[in-house]
């Protein structure tokens, strides 16, 4: 009986631990798509065409914006930088942040990429022909519209500010511009996907 006591204690502790550890799947903070939507596109990067399906990383975070956007776009891109940097290095290798310009008239692929890389050197910036951008925007349900037009180089762009999470070619998760700023919760969602 004396010999059995430590084992009983251990068993008791294990049982206690079993009941204390939360069970079940991760509860997502972002908006999870019940029917993940297959998505793909080819746009222009600084070194030529980039096809979404050929991006090496399995989780891609997409944000649509424009370079001449000093307030809204940097706020989200800085939030994505914080989330990316909070991931362990192993997870970072499997995540890619891509900025897609919805202002192809002003943002060349080089400018879009320089802009993205200013936030994090691993980020990628893409642009393309107005038709190609329109097509990608339609795929993701992104709205964009020139506003306060003063001339061919002087205008603002209203645009959907959602961050889209694509995993293995399928759109699986969305973060609103407010939600994306909760770094810890975004990181937990990404780690649950990986």
């Amino acid at each position, binding site marked *: 009986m004396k010999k059995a006591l430590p084992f009983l204690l251990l068993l008791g502790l294990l049982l206690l631990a079993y009941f204390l550890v939360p069970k079940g799947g991760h509860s997502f903070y972002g908006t999870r798509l019940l029917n993940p939507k297959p998505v793909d596109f080819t746009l222009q990067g600084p070194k030529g065409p980039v096809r979404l399906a050929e991006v090496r990383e399995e989780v891609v975070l997409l944000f649509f914006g424009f370079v001449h956007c000093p307030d809204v776009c940097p*706020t989200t891109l800085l939030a994505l930088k914080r989330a990316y940097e909070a991931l362990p290095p192993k997870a970072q290798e499997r995540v890619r942040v891509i900025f897609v310009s919805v202002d192809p008239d002003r943002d060349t692929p080089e*400018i879009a990429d320089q802009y993205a890389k200013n936030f994090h050197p691993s980020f990628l910036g893409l642009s393309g022909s107005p038709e190609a951008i329109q097509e990608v925007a339609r795929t993701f*349900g*992104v*709205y964009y519209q020139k*506003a306060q037009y003063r001339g061919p180089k002087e205008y603002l762009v*209203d645009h959907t500010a959602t961050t889209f999470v694509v995993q293995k070619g399928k759109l699986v998760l969305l973060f609103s511009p407010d939600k994306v700023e909760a770094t810890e919760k975004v990181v937990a969602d990404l780690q649950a996907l990986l």
Partner: protein
Amino acid sequence: MRVLLLLLLGSLAWGKPVATPGWVRLVPPVLKDTAAYLTLENRGTTPLRLVGAETEVAQRVSFHRDHREHRHGQEVLGMRPLPHVDIPPGGKVVFRPGGYHLMLEGLKRPLKAGEKVAITLRFQDGTRLKVLLPVEMR
């Protein structure tokens, strides 16, 4: 004595702007526009109207407010220029991401992290207020 008191009261009846510095956003050199943030308080007894601003580092300074609308169930963001910004007596206006911002348009040179940018704010009553804002990446 009475004259002095009247003068004192007269001076109290002005709008009195007080600025709490914020920051100027560090942007990549490809960008010619950036945003500046600060808090403006009116410690006076009459309304203050911010009508303009100047800085040596940019061609123009304008005021903007973020514009939000929902389309297809998602949030669409943009910004709209404001001709002026009103600060009621005893009130304040916070310029911060997602709300109001000063837009420094046409940067004459790339800004460096840590440098201080001087911006002169002009109010309708002729008051001028100079603020120094650090350039930060945040």
